[in-house]
């Protein structure tokens, strides 16, 4: 999977959780939960969906690397290209 494909997949999963927020309108370097107005259970839903989609463990210890849209994308790309 290319980084561009991963980005599309990430946008799709975010759109499922926050259909009222356009990914193009958010600040990709700002706090993901603030930008998409998602709470802890939404975030867990997102992590669950991404973990299933990419077959990744997405451990809680790594949540610190998922703080912004850019961080999360970098994390996914890095995990998938190890």
């Amino acid at each position, binding site marked *: 999977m290319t980084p561009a494909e991963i980005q599309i997949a990430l946008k799709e999963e975010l*759109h499922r959780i926050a*259909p009222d927020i356009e990914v193009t309108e958010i600040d990709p370097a700002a706090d993901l939960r603030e930008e998409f107005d998602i709470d802890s259970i939404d975030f867990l839903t997102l992590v669950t969906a991404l973990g*299933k989609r990419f077959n990744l463990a997405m*451990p809680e210890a790594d949540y610190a690397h998922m703080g912004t849209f850019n961080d999360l994308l970098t994390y996914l790309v890095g995990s998938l290209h190890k």
Partner: protein
Amino acid sequence: MPSLGADMEAGTLVEWLKEPGETVKRGDIVAVVETQKGAIEIEIFENGVLESYLVEIGNKVPVGTPLATIRGKGATIEEAKPERKAEAAKTAEAAAPQPPESVEKAPDAQAKPIETPRIEGERLRITPAARRMAAQSGISLEMLSNASNDFISLSDVEERIGGTVASEKFSMRDAIAAAMSRSKREIPHYYLSHTTDISAAVNFVAETNKNRAPEERLLLGALYLKAVAKALSKYPEFNGHFTKNVYHESSAVHAGMAINIRGGGLVAPAIHDTESRDLDELMTAMRDLIIRVRAGRFRARELSDATITITSLGDRGVDQLFGIIYPPQVAIIGIGTPARRPWVHDGILVPREVTTLTLAADHRVSDGHRGALFLRAIDKQLQSPEAL
């Protein structure tokens, strides 16, 4: 058209999920009704055959109006002729509010294995505002689902109508306004607050989740639900309904979980039999409920059955909240955003995870002394998370 609270006068039928001639059994979801509180799924309480629709999609009818006729078992086709229909057919009195004493299990109550909740509205992904708009404009949902294979939003529906439409958030706001005005008018609230160290609960969740796949992970919210439910066993004056000047305590805890709705408003549907479910089951129930609420799909009983409300500010909120009781309930527990704060623990000043629990309760039913003991009991439960 079931009543979903004293403030509801009418509802709009937006979707039939069963066809005439289909067999229906108790617990089946047969229709979706749009109310001020959002789209509500209507359960059936009879076994039989759906004979005919009595209300057309898009029509708004008063509470109490029959929506469909259900032919009960034993009534043959011949018996269902028009002149006999009145006695053979039973009105679908779906989802009449159950008394709080009811300990009847919800159909999903025994879901034992941990499973990722499926989005129930899968075949039609539509936001509540869009669903409402479609119903009011007489646009069939099938037309919309063909128009787009993505999430159907308000703008999709507006496009279909071909005009601009005023905000649809008013009706939800009206419902909240009515319920909260009634609460402030009728219920003599008293308020208590208690700040506590919840490091044990936070650590327990982190430790439990360490080797778990995301779909099996716990959130603090599940611990709060269970802690409140267990504490209530000794404080029944906070768990029930106050109706017609009489307090009816409930033997089961149906904790209403306040859920924020994207785009405005909130609802607090019940997680049935909170006290008898373990943490994993509560997590599954919470995830399922939140996904359905966000998709605009929850059941009538889930709104009317709650015996107490729990509202948690989550991890992006503030220190504490002062709740307004949702009538006819008599108490609401507020849980502030946990924060790392200086705390004296075992005689030493150390950073700990601290949160503030609040209680708003009905003075017609209980007093501050008992309220304080109840809040302390919740605190105590949270100190032993492994026993929850």
